């Protein structure tokens, strides 16, 4: 299975609907400071079920909704859709392609969809379980957090291990 597409709309600095297509192999994301690269990584963790606003550098989950500029109004919601190829059937569904969507509104209300049908966070988590895609399985290695695993105390390091194993 592999990541095919990422659609970001109204999430953080991505005011307009933005689409990234992926192929097997190595994709590099580049650009100047503050242009939105880590926001792309945040959108992936978010659509995969990240529950901690702090883990996304925010105080509350609604902080991830595009909040406007001098020339643009703020968005009323944020939406991210991740599309995976399932040709090898490693996910327990008959589809060749699986898309997971997450939305959050200004009210704080959150929605999940699997292949456009309303689902619960629980369904999204079950879908990923066992394929190694849960966000605790190192599918995102974050800027500035690498040092911790080497400099932390033995007991803290144990906690990091438990998450992976």
């Amino acid at each position, binding site marked *: 299975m592999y990541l095919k597409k990422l659609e970001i709309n109204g999430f953080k600095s991505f005011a307009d609907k933005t689409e990234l297509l992926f192929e097997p192999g*190595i994709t590099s994301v580049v650009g100047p400071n503050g242009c939105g690269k880590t926001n792309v990584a945040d959108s992936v963790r978010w659509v995969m079920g990240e529950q901690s606003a702090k883990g996304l550098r925010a105080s509350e989950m609604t902080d991830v909704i595009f909040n406007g500029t*001098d020339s643009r109004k703020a968005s009323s919601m944020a939406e991210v859709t991740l599309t995976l190829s399932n040709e090898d059937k490693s996910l327990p569904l008959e589809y060749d392609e699986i898309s997971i969507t997450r939305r959050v509104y200004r009210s704080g209300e959150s929605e999940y969809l699997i292949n456009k049908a309303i689902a619960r966070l629980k369904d999204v988590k079950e879908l990923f379980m066992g*394929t190694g895609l849960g966000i605790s399985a190192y599918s995102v290695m974050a800027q500035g957090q690498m040092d911790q695993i080497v400099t932390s105390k033995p007991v803290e*390091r144990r906690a990091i291990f438990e998450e992976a194993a």
Partner: protein
Amino acid sequence: SKELFTSTFATVQENFKDVFQRLFEGGRAELILIDEGDVLESGIEIVARPPGKRLQSVSLLSGGEKALTAIALLFALFMVKPSPFCLLDEIDAPLDDVNTGRFIHLLKEFAKRTQFIMITHSKVSMEIADVIYGVTMQEAGVSKIISTKFKEGAPEGAPVS
């Protein structure tokens, strides 16, 4: 359970020794259970010795050596249960050009079975990408993406949205 942890830990230990030696082109590193008698609670110690240097506490390693050791450990953990894709956000930032080269050499090998999306500022790292996405903020505060494919022939810049 105790057996699950012990066997997983043994695998990570093996992986870590191996990946460390590949990234440092020598030297030696170990993961150690501080309290072998209390497998389910024991803290985990790291010992790392770059080639030609004498063994000391990991705290005395340089910024770049710590980063390379962390990369070895994260990949050792990753190999236990590899995700189909993996996103790396500037983990090569503290590495000099030589170490970045060793890192991306390792990445190319892992990339045969795992899809990597690598955020980077390093020109050395960008070189192994099959596809490059440029993120820009031409309009202040609004991100836009431009893709530049590299796999076959000349790059073409084309706004994606």
